[in-house]
């Protein structure tokens, strides 16, 4: 009888517990963000969990805004849950995503990744790769062996964390060398100007007494803040400057350039940059010329209206237009609405590349249109009348008279356009950030050289390598410009 009562009591007590454990999904792990900042770009989370045999791993999801569904967040990492027999604990601070389980360093699996004991009740990890200075929302989702979430993925309640830790593993960079350099440059420029002024005074040019004074601020500003950084930048390419040790970079010779040439995807990104720039320039010139010709027609009603509207892509701030196009190309955006589809144009590599080029074409046409319009108006009307009396057809007039005479304008303008497209950062950054993703450290599918260099410098923090890339880009542009001008001079001479 007593055994029966005991058994009933135990069952009665165990029932709710078991029911809770089995009838409903496990409750969400309780996540809290630690106050301490473990390091630059790191946020530390503490997670309290109820051990559950179904849990095979914990997924850590994060986003820049609060979210309730994993659809609106990104997966940061996945930590496996397993038996830890035969595994060894890691040492504190040994690897990036340093984790502790129940207060001790976590066990590491064969690949050196942290794992969580099956029976752990508390674990914490330092999440890396967090963007400083911004709130980040984090949620932890337990998943089963099949990869299915064990909590309601649409009912998440993430917590927010933030890291403002500055990049200071070393003492603050020494400002003195830079100040010395700037100071000496300014002083030497002033000395140069004074010297020139004296030279003029001796030569007796009194009319221009104040000239050097007038020119001084601009020249000093230019040399200090443009030439010096350029030379500094070139110098950086030969050091191992990195975000982790700013201020004591060491000379490494051509190592960065070797890295550049050996980078995976280097040829791919260069190739795409060339394709991008050439396609853009050709389309800009073609459509710009078409529009300029159309608007040049005498007596066209509504010409000013048309012209004003066609200026809009230039007048509207570029970043706004690009972001708007970004929205229009979303699966629920305008383009899909018109076509009646729901394609994510920015998701696939080829479609993203095409779309990004088309948007940049849209942006650049007005400038070309205005320039060519001015050049068209400068053509003498007499010449066309002479051709008309001579019986030359309208198409021949365009081909043999208009085009050759536009060449003198089109050549420098198209070169400028090419260089502008080549270095056009906003469009790609704001449309895709260079994605679709290809590989770690590699340029994305829509990266061009300048956006890739940006990520090397400001996302991976490798300033030296980025500087090497910059030098190479510059050399490429110089060579291209030289070849282009040479070729067009040659054809001009024979025309």
């Amino acid at each position, binding site marked *: 009888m007593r055994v029966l009562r005991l058994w009933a009591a135990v069952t009665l007590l165990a029932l709710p517990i078991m029911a809770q454990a089995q009838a409903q999904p496990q409750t969400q792990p309780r996540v809290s963000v630690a106050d301490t900042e473990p390091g630059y770009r790191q946020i530390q989370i503490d997670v309290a969990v109820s051990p559950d045999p179904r849990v095979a791993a914990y997924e850590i999801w994060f986003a820049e*805004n609060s979210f309730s569904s994993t659809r609106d967040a990104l997966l940061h990492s996945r930590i496996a849950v397993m038996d830890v027999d035969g595994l060894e604990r890691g040492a504190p601070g040994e690897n990036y995503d340093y984790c502790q389980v129940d207060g001790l360093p976590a066990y590491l699996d064969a690949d050196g990744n942290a794992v969580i004991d099956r029976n752990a009740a508390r674990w914490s990890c330092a999440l890396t790769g967090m963007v400083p200075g911004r709130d980040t929302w984090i949620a932890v989702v337990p998943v089963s062996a099949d990869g299915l979430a064990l909590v309601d993925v649409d009912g998440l309640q993430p917590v927010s964390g933030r890291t403002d830790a500055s990049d200071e593993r070393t003492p603050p960079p020494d400002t003195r060398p830079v100040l010395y350099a700037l100071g000496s440059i300014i002083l030497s420029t002033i000395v140069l100007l004074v010297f020139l002024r004296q030279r003029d005074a001796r030569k007796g040019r009194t009319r221009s007494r104040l000239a050097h004074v007038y020119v001084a601020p*601009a020249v000093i500003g230019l040399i200090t803040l443009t030439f010096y950084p350029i030379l500094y*930048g070139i110098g950086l390419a030969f050091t191992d400057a990195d975000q982790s040790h700013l201020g004591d970079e060491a000379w490494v010779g051509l190592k960065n350039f070797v890295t550049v040439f050996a980078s995976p995807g280097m040829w791919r990104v260069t190739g795409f940059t060339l394709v991008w720039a050439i396609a853009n320039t050709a389309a800009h010139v073609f459509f710009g010329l078409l529009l300029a010709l159309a608007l040049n027609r005498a007596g066209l009603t509504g010409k000013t209206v048309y012209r004003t509207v066609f200026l809009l892509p230039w007048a509207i701030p570029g*970043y706004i237009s690009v972001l708007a196009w970004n929205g229009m190309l979303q699966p629920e955006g305008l383009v899909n609405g018109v*076509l009646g589809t729901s394609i994510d144009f920015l998701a696939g590599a080829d479609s993203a590349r095409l779309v990004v080029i088309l948007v940049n074409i*849209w942006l650049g046409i007005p400038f070309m249109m205005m320039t060519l319009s001015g050049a068209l108006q400068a053509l003498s009307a007499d010449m066309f009348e002479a051709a008309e009396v001579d019986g030359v057809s309208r198409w021949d007039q365009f081909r043999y008279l208009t085009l050759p005479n536009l060449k003198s304008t089109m050549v420098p303008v198209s070169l400028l356009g090419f260089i502008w497209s*080549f*270095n056009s950062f906003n469009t790609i950054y*704001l449309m895709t950030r260079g994605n679709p993703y290809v590989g770690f450290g590699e340029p994305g599918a829509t990266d061009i050289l300048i956006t890739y260099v940006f990520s090397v410098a400001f996302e991976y923090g490798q300033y030296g390598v980025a500087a090497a890339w910059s030098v190479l880009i*510059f050399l490429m542009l110089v060579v291209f410009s030289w070849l282009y001008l040479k070729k067009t001079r040659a054809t001009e001479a024979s025309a």
Partner: protein
Amino acid sequence: MSRPSLAARWYVPAEIQALRLWLSVAVLVNLLIMALDVVRDGKLWPSLLGIALLALGRLSLPDGQANWKKPVAQLLGAGGVALGLFALAISPRLLYDVWSVAWLVVPCLLLVAWLSRPRVADWAGGRSDREFAERGLARNKESMPRLDVVALHLALLHGLAVVIVPVIWIVDVAVSPGNVLGGAIGDAFTLEHFTAVLSGDSFWTWTRNSLVVAAGTTVFGLALAVPAGYAFSRYQFSGRKESMFLFMLVQMFPGIIILVPYFMVMKTLGLLNTSIGLIIVYSVTALPLGVWMLKGFFDTVPRALEEAAVLDGCNQFEVFFRVVLPLSLPAVAITALFSFLAAWNEFLLALVFNTSNEQYTLPVGLASMIPATGQQWGDFAAASIIVSIPVVVLFVFFQRALIQGLSAGSVKG
């Protein structure tokens, strides 16, 4: 008459001339439509058939000699019309479908209809007597300009649509509730996004930053550029040619080279995340162009005025401030406007230098509304409109002067 008259040799009916061009253009446009159709649902055949009909129709346009061309062309045209109407019937009949079918049906319809006109039919049948040709030429003189104008406006309207529709769409998103991107245009109206943006702190912070930076750039940049431009324009001094070359050379460097060193210099000096840092960088970046524009303008002020002032007893300084500067005020204003707009719209440097929300300028702030996830399209659209309107108005108002200023600078360069 063994040889046709002069008039007959030169007479081609306006309709035929127009069709020659329009059918070719229609083929190209239909190629584009075919590409879009493939993207849409992979169906190639209707567009391909349509293109074939149009191309063949173009090739079999009559040439003034009695032959097989006219009936064949008309048949092809009729085929095209039928195909187009059929395709329209089996399509979901969105606006896009109507437009794309129109580009097949309308040219084919014109082909059939115009070839049936008596005058054209006569010509296609080989009629070439002088009176006929002369009357035809007279009629051409009236018809051709009208046809040209129609075609021109049609083409321009297409371009207009490509430019204007994004603007209309943004406005629609700005006044639609929620962050919904889809939905028909004009189906809902709410001012919630405008209220949200204008009552939030961020927007005003960003605006304040942008104003400070742009105004600072303008003032500081002009302070540097105006005297320099004047000196280059008026004075011959040692180092003039070299300095001008310097300014030109600097313009050629792509910004990316300077970006990393700027960043490091600014970081070392502690000027990151400040407005002053941006002002300094912007002013110097805009310097060469500003100096060129101003030099170009100063060159147009006649020296005689300055010489008269000197004869009146002014020293060099007074000549500059009291005679030249007031005359160049419009030019200085345009350069100022240019600098202001350039600083107001600049994105990359602001992104790199100012990384905390407190220091964001408008471009970076607006871009932060559209991160990888959780995009606030409605608020972004509202903010975009608020930011864009003054910029666009200023630009449109001063477009001619801005372009003149640009070309004055670049032509000399």
